[in-house]
């Protein structure tokens, strides 16, 4: 296409490639993990409550163990607050819903922009705070890998560019919109091959762990 602008690329070929890679990568990871579930457990069979044990693990692992709560309270609360703020910004902003509707064919009610702006700002601030904590905290720094840092930056970029585009800061609107879309596309490409996959894997893996422990008679 001749004379393609940055926005044209971001709304067209860039978006298409990012979505293809995202779909391919996510299914690759999920199907691969599901096939591995069939590994035979050689331990003695002790309980027969697979579903209950699985669901229980999903719940118990959603809150930290009491013994650790004091030490990770900030991380615990800010982690939940960050996810809620992110979901509100992503899922209830009218232009975002129009995008999802164009793919899935259905929509849902949106929230006023003021709330979206607030939740976006909260999500951005919390993620920056969590990134700083990860760098400063000796234990967190020790267990962090390059994947963690890249994933945080890759998620932070759409938030920052989205807020900038919304508030008309940093450049002309179409430029900021293009940068926002490109940031989202970068995240989509990085997503399946990184820890961002936890969005798909968290609960299935907790469930699987619960059933696995249940099989061996472990109450966890």
């Amino acid at each position: 296409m001749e004379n393609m602008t940055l926005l044209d690329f971001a709304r067209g070929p860039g978006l298409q490639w990012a979505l293809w890679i995202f779909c391919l990568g996510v299914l690759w990871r999920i199907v691969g993990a599901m096939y591995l579930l069939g590994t035979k457990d050689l331990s003695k069979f002790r309980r027969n409550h697979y579903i209950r044990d699985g669901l229980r693990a999903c719940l118990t692992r959603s809150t930290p163990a009491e013994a650790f709560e004091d030490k990770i309270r900030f991380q615990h609360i800010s982690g939940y607050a960050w996810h809620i703020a992110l979901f509100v910004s992503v899922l209830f902003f009218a232009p975002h819903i129009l995008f999802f509707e164009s793919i899935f064919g259905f929509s849902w009610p949106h929230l006023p922009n003021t709330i979206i702006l607030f939740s976006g700002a909260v999500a951005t601030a919390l993620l920056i705070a969590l990134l700083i904590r990860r760098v400063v905290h000796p234990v967190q720094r020790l267990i962090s890998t390059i994947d963690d840092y890249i994933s945080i930056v890759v998620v932070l970029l759409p938030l920052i560019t989205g807020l900038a585009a919304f508030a008309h800061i940093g450049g002309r609107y179409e430029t900021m919109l293009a940068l926002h879309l490109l940031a989202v596309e970068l995240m989509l490409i990085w997503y399946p091959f990184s820890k961002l996959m936890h969005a798909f894997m968290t609960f299935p893996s907790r469930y699987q762990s619960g059933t696995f422990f249940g099989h061996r008679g472990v109450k966890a």
Partner: protein
Amino acid sequence: MRKDQNLGEYLRSQGVSRRGFLKFCSATASLMALPPSAVAQVAEALAAARRPSVIWLSFQECTGCTESLTRSHSPTVESLIFDAISLDYHHTLQAAAGHGAEAAREAAQEENKGEYILVVDGSIPVDNPAYSTIAGISNLDMLKHSAKDCFAIVAVGTCAAYGGLPGAEPNPTGAVAVSDIITDKPIINVSGCPPIPVVITGVLAHFLTFGTIPELDALGRPTAFFGQNIHDRCYRRPFYERGEFAETFDDEGARKGWCLYKLGCKGPITYNACATVKWNQGMGFPIQAGHGCIACSEPRFWDKGGFYDALSTGDWGSREALLGAAAVGAALGAGSAIRARARKRKAMAEEEA
């Protein structure tokens, strides 16, 4: 207007009062983002201006730009100023036809060498020059010939400025903009489909006042008129902020004048004076009439997705392509898992052995 008359004398002879003229000068100075102190300078310069020669070439176009200018709201001071230029060639408006008309163009070019303004509306086909000719002369040749001796070029309308509708994919005639061909002359792009009449006369007033071309943006448009984003200046903007959108063209939201973003309004990516200067003597503009902006002053606006698709939707391809990518991913996942199991079995067998 006689050749020896200046603009001030001509306007007085047409019954335009000093007050009316100053009102126009104030509005023009304001549009050009000049300070109030410049109004007197604008008035003085305009009143003393001699009629400049203008050669207007119409190529691959629909005449909408000319219609916009001549039928918008006359008679006004703007239209009288337009009358006050020496429009020496315009094949839609001129009385002369055939060889006489072409001779007038050649004569105007010869008499006003280096001083005349060349106005172009319409794009130029370059795939085959025969696609559009005037008096047997291809648009390409006529443009090159007429541009050779001009002072500056005003590309009126999105077709002349960026290729416009004729240049839309698949661009069957190989239509290009004036700036794709002429690179050694100042070019002012007055884009729009059509452009706002007062923007055309405003550019002309700037030329008459200062004898220079106005400040231009990255797309060659006068920043005085194209520096503002439609969305930023839209009176429906508060509804966007509150998340109040019209869902269809006849629902309650539409009747209440809510934001047209969901109906495909391209205001956020469009730069033009529609929301400030407006059309039909400042009566309204498309968004005020209930239709979203189609970004007609932007390059390739025909190829930026559907006019009624919301800006945030994007061209994400097809569901089939996404499902295909997902199927390939699933196959890769299954393949890699089977391979991993085989490796594990082999390792166990080796250990047992």
